[in-house]
């Protein structure tokens, strides 16, 4: 059964990318015919940080470790929340205002689990996955640490 699912999947559960994240594509990817609910979370580069104007961001990561952890989170979400499927994507490199930095999509037969899993995934990703962010302001730059 698990092999079947893997075989029909068009892409991995977790991904790091230096190009734009295709959120609609993730929503297509995540849901099956038995799913009645898809919840997504999308992080977008804001134009300010606590009121200070942001010009752009840069993300770096411990890439293999981040990817492995994100895969593990997708699996843990299935076990903890009973969802059908979760997919996670994070962008790396330079991002401009309005670009998508992270996207999570969760599919489930019913809605409550999908939303709860989505929230847990973004919270845990932020806390645990080794991805690092630098903010560039008009008058300086700083790692978010």
């Amino acid at each position: 059964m698990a092999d079947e699912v893997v075989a029909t999947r068009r892409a991995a559960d977790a991904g790091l990318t230096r190009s734009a994240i295709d959120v609609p594509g993730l929503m297509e990817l995540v849901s099956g015919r038995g799913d009645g609910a898809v919840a997504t979370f999308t992080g977008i580069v804001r134009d300010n940080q606590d009121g200070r104007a942001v010009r752009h961001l840069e993300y770096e990561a411990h890439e293999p470790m981040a990817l492995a952890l994100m895969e593990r989170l997708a699996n843990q979400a299935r076990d903890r929340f009973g969802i059908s499927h979760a997919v996670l994507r994070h962008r790396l490199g330079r991002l401009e205002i309005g670009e998508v930095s992270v996207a999570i999509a969760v599919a489930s037969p019913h809605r409550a689990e999908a939303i709860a899993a989505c929230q847990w995934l973004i919270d845990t990703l932020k806390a645990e996955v080794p991805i690092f962010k630098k903010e560039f302001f008009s008058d300086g730059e700083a790692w978010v640490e």
Partner: protein
Amino acid sequence: MTITVLLFASAREAAGTGRLEMEVAEGSSPSSVFEEISKRTPALTRMRPNIRCAIDQEYGAWDAALHDGAELAFISPTAGG
């Protein structure tokens, strides 16, 4: 024994490199290695309270025993999302 040390974010910038191949004594731990590289880059010392260590891509203890060929990553505060 030889290990690979990885640094990220402000720690990487402070050290001037994200990757060091190091010869360390048997019985070395993440803690002793961090101390070692802090000698060359004193700015790292004040970052230590906010850094986690990962051995072979799993978060681990600062006093864990390193093995020959280990990858030791010092994980600065994460800010994905």
